[in-house]
């Protein structure tokens, strides 16, 4: 048996071992199954929302109805038609009154869940420097609601607002109203319209003028309930001259059914502001036969609205049965910068169609795209990216590099770049490579003492290095391990 074949089989054997596949036994408050105006009203009422937001949701819902049967079909992914009436659009752990005022009031079962997931919710541990806790504030979203947000007081001292979006609607309506839907309008696409109608929790961040956020902000998304989808909405606003680094992580139980995750993330960077947004996505990927797993259909977009602003997306996508995701940047301000760094793994029968859009509108705008796609098992991976330079974008520059790595002989890697240049002076460069882990590389590593899994992990980490370097230090090590696990158990 060739070492490569052996590795592929080791990967397949181990791939049942998704480590976050457990279920938390907890009473849930659920919306009735199905989707109609009543459900939209139900969700809005649950969150005690003002009328303007209910109207906003209803408008989105009507747009979605108009888009019915208009799901995007151009992506290189294949799955049976989703019955949107056969899902529950709101599920939340039952609680007394208004919800936990402090961590002490959070259901211990939930705290145990996050402990098991390795997410630090206990501020005292973080402060005491408990290993692995890191200098991070966390918003923990469990199904449709946020269950805890740490370090809010410390952040508030500097004027930084970090809270569940439902809380922001209540406490900072002027900010939410001004920016919600300003980057991703309700009718932007099928899934964005659905999200706008039924979105539940997600994080809200506002960093005031001139403030450099003193710690990493992070949201941890957990899908727990059966038969539900998660539709979170995240909105981050970096005011003039401010800086913030934000990270999201995601896991879900191992189930035979497919569950939908349709999020919308909007970023707004004003003049001189900088937002760094990192994702480590490890939703349950399904099993080796393609049964179960999350459908990850997400719209993420940032607007560099002010001059000299910068938005940087970094994503490590190892989970989900299907990923449909194109974190994008609208480069409106002069000299603004957009970056996209991505590592995506498709193992088992995972399918990923992911990439970015860089839309150059302002003068002297720059964008960089580095995409590393890894296919193993029967995984299918497509990079799809758009670089557009509008007529007024004098001096726009883009550099794109797309590398695909194939492990085994029954997976696929595809690259679909779209370049749309409407300015004669634009500089756009695209480089692409496709390579394999060769038997010679594997043997070389094994001769030096590495077992086949360590060898694959090392080679893959090397392949992804440029992207992993972009992650905040606290998460880079985690991401490296995750790649390892996805290639033991997903090529990692």
């Amino acid at each position: 048996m060739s070492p490569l074949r052996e590795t592929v089989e080791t990967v397949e054997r181990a791939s049942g071992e998704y480590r976050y596949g457990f279920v938390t036994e907890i009473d849930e408050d659920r919306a009735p199954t199905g989707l109609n105006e009543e459900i939209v009203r139900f969700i809005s009422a649950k969150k005690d929302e003002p009328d303007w937001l209910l109207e906003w949701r209803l408008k989105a819902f009507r747009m979605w109805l108009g888009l019915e049967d208009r799901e995007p079909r151009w992506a290189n992914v294949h799955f049976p038609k989703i019955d949107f009436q056969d899902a529950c659009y709101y599920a939340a752990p039952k609680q007394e009154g208004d919800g936990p005022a402090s961590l002490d009031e959070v259901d211990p079962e939930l705290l145990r869940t996050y402990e098991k997931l390795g997410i630090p919710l206990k501020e005292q541990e973080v402060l005491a420097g408990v290993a692995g806790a890191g200098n991070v504030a966390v918003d923990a979203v469990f199904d449709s609601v946020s269950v805890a947000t740490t370090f809010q007081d410390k952040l508030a001292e500097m004027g930084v607002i970090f809270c569940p979006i439902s809380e922001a609607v209540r406490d900072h309506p002027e900010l939410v109203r001004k920016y919600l839907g300003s980057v991703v309008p309700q009718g932007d696409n099928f899934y964005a319209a659905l999200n706008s109608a039924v979105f539940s929790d997600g994080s809200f961040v506002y960093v005031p003028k001139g403030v450099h956020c003193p710690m990493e902000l992070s949201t941890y998304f957990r899908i727990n309930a059966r038969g539900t989808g998660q539709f979170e909405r995240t909105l981050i606003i970096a005011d003039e001259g401010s800086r913030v680094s934000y990270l999201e992580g995601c896991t879900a139980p191992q189930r035979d059914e497919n569950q939908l995750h349709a999020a919308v993330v909007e970023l707004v960077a004003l003049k001189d502001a900088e937002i760094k947004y990192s994702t480590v996505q490890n939703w349950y990927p399904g099993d080796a036969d393609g049964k179960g797993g999350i459908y990850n259909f997400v719209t993420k977009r940032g607007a560099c609205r002010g001059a000299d602003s910068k938005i940087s997306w970094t994503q490590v996508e190892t989970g989900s049965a299907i990923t449909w995701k194109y974190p994008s940047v609208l480069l409106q301000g002069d000299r603004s910068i957009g970056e996209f760094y991505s590592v995506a793994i498709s193992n088992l029968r995972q399918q990923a169609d992911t990439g970015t859009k860089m839309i150059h509108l302002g003068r002297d705008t720059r964008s960089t795209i580095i995409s590393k796609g890894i296919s193993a098992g029967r995984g299918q991976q497509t990079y799809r990216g758009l670089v557009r330079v509008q007529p007024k974008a004098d001096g726009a520059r883009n550099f794109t590099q797309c590398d695909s790595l194939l492990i085994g002989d029954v997976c696929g890697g595809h690259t679909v770049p779209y370049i749309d240049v409407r300015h004669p002076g634009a500089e756009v460069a695209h480089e692409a490579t496709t390579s394999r882990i060769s038997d010679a590389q594997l043997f070389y590593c094994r001769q030096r003492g590495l077992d086949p899994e360590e060898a694959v992990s090392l080679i893959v980490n090397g392949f992804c290095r440029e992207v992993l370097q972009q992650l905040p230090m606290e998460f880079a090590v985690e991401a490296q391990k995750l790649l390892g696990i996805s290639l033991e158990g997903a090529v990692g």
Partner: protein
Amino acid sequence: MSEPLLRIRNLRASVDGQEVLKGVDLAVTAGEVAAIMGPNGSGKSTLSNVLAGRDGYEVTDGEVRYDGRDLLDMEPEERAAAGVFMAFQYPVEIPGVVNATFTRTALNAQRQARGESAIDAIDFLKRARETLDRLEMDEAFLRRDVNAGFSGGEKKRNEIFQMALLEPRLAILDETDSGLDIDALRIVATGVNAMRDGRRALVVITHYQRLLEYVVPDSVHVLADGRIARSGDRELAHELERAGYAAFQPA
């Protein structure tokens, strides 16, 4: 005299159904430097690959004992952990993985397999620097990707560097001298000679006797048409240099 560190008996091996090794017998004792010479196609590289456990080489008969164990029954990484090192004729490139990471990962994988504690980054760096110094290699070497963009000579020196750090008990050098200029050859020889401490064994596979001017072998064996056709001391190497391999070529 004690049991040799490496004993090969009647080893037969095929590549793609073609028999290449046709009954190799060889014994190498601890402390010995054995040179294996032979014309192209005589089976030199096949022998080193079989010893290291590379896939695609089918052993059809014979046995190989290493330090009292059945070498052919071990996985390549088990052989490495047991102290078998091969300097590759064509070292591969591993983009994105720096030399320091690669070598430390390898060292710790071997140590872990032997039940020893891991070497931390600081200790490793200290050892690596000392080794580089001895081999007249620049420290920047540690930060470069494994063999990526290396010249032929640099790749071979990297093999010697890894060997020096991993401290194997049996090192097999597969045509390490090919493609080296005289300076690189001298440095490689320095590294190899540093390994001679009376306990280790070295198997130096080469086509020319050039390297053997610097690394003086204890024994010389001529591999021809898949068998050891003749064994002798270093004089044999000189004889081959004068007369060539004509006497050993199949008619």
